[in-house]
């Protein structure tokens, strides 16, 4: 599904990420493990096309990201990649439904009000469609963020620390939601985490070491 080759990334001349070769098949759930500061978020940003690595190549769904002009990369990201941020970053001026419609609008997809409602209902947020994000509990916010990430039926779903700081039961629930949503659109799910509790749920794992 995607292939990374000879990735190096440095901030201000200091190398923060080194990854020689990593290929993933469509639909496979993966875990990126590693301690804080090992470059997990950087790797996610590179996969999302938000960050261009200092060296190396990224190909997603057969598309070499280097080859895309800036605005087409934005469009490609919107269409094919869904991101659940660690701090969720729902847009607080919009309702939950507005956040979903915004994701469809910005990706250039047709805005499907009915589909958005169905998706929210499947995540137990049917009655929260017209609520503002600050009126939601953390669990509800997280599911809303997942809904926003999958509303365009992406090929790749990226999640940054979705279970950290959650108690065991909530962490399991959050993970279940992500896995179920990824399965329902046959997307490749990549989770970056330092949370050891969820390791046994994943067959495929990659561990980043601290780069010195």
């Amino acid at each position, binding site marked *: 599904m995607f292939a990374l080759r000879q990735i190096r990334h440095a901030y201000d001349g200091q190398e923060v990420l080194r990854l020689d070769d990593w290929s993933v098949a469509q639909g496979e759930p993966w875990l990126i493990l590693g301690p804080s500061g090992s470059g997990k978020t950087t790797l996610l940003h590179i996969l999302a096309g938000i960050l261009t690595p200092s060296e190396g190549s990224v190909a997603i769904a057969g598309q070499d990201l280097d080859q895309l002009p800036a*605005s087409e990369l934005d469009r490609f*990201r919107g269409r094919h990649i869904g991101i659940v941020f660690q701090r969720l970053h729902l847009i607080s*001026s919009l309702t939950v439904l507005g956040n979903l419609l915004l994701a469809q*609008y*910005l990706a250039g997809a047709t805005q499907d009000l009915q589909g958005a409602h169905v998706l929210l209902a499947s995540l137990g947020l049917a009655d929260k469609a017209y609520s503002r994000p600050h009126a939601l509990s953390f669990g509800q916010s997280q599911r809303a963020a997942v809904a926003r990430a999958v509303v365009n039926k992406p090929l790749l779903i990226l999640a940054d620390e979705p279970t950290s700081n959650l108690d065991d039961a909530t962490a399991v629930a959050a993970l279940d939601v992500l896995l179920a949503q990824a399965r329902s659109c046959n997307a490749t799910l990549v989770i970056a985490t330092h949370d050891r509790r969820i390791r046994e749920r994943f067959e495929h794992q990659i561990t980043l070491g601290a780069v010195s």
Partner: protein
Amino acid sequence: MNLLRLSLAYIRARALNAALNVLLLGLGVATIVVLLLFTHQFEQRLERDSKGIDLVVGAKGSPLQLILSSVYHVDIPTGNIPLADAEKLKTNPLIKATVPLALGDSYEGFRIVGTNHDYVSLYDGKTTEGRLWEKSYEAVLGSEVAAHARLKVGDKFVGSHGIVEAGEKHANSPYTIVGLLAPSGSVLDRLVLTSVESVWEIHGQGPHEKDGAEEDNRGDPSKPRHPQPQELTALLIQYASPMAAAMLPRQINSQSALQAASPAFESARLLNLVGVGVQTVQAFALILILCAGLSVFIALYNALRERSYDLAVMRSLGASRGKLLATILIEGLILASGGVVLGLALGHVLTEVLGGWLRASQRVYVTGWTVVPGELALVLTALAIGLLSALLPAVLAYRTDIAGVLARR
């Protein structure tokens, strides 16, 4: 969802701040709208009232006063001129036409003007009822006078001595109304017209004449001396050729008893005097508008910091840099449009209210229900300021480093 709704959602999220910006801009725009409406209608009125009058000849004094009193009928006359001098001017080949004016009396604050029928045709006046005056003591009322006094054809009324405040009444010599004039949008609407002879005769028989009261009025500027028989207050002149403009005023002013003044020149001078005040208020209003622009800028600029995550998220959702630029610009434009709409509405309503008061005092006719040319430029300027104040925040949004913002802890 689209950019417009997104921008509106952000404005709603900071509704109070937005309302303040809109109000600030609206007040500035309203002030300028009021000024534009007033000055434009004032200028139009000056132009309309002096149309067809190239030169005014009257007694020596202030040329502005001569024009104000005999063209616009707002000031007191400078004095009187001998009829013989006026008759002599009529034969001058540089002059195409003359209209005599004899002033001095009023009816309920409206001036009684002794003149001939040419004065009515000067303003394209038409009678709606009755006819123009033919004999002495026949009078024709302008539309505002008729509406105010509720008089009709056949009624009689008594004029008062003096043109500013009503003086003694000429009770012995009532006028008979023989006609009413249609509204002309000119000074004619506020005048009572009669023949020059009526003014002379009233003076000849007036009560003050018998006891010599006329002489006592000399020192009182609000009660100018009546034109004696064989005297006129002023003579309105139309040139026969452009050459007259160069020669006639000098010719007349060289005569000891007469003064010639050009309405075009004097009203330009008047507008110049008024213009200083107008410009001061205009500058003040412009400062208001610029402050509004600055306030929009500060609001958007401050909002950028709390919005940096939103902007980064929008990029990650597929928004191009251009779209981020556009949302901020649209936000500035929406605020500016709100201010412009508020300002236009407020300006027009305010002008109508102020104009209503002025109309009641029968001085100037100003309405808020009209659009003047300067408003388009004002609208464009205000919108440009709104757009400009959003430009820097928009460019900063355009340049958001998404990975940097999202990696921030």
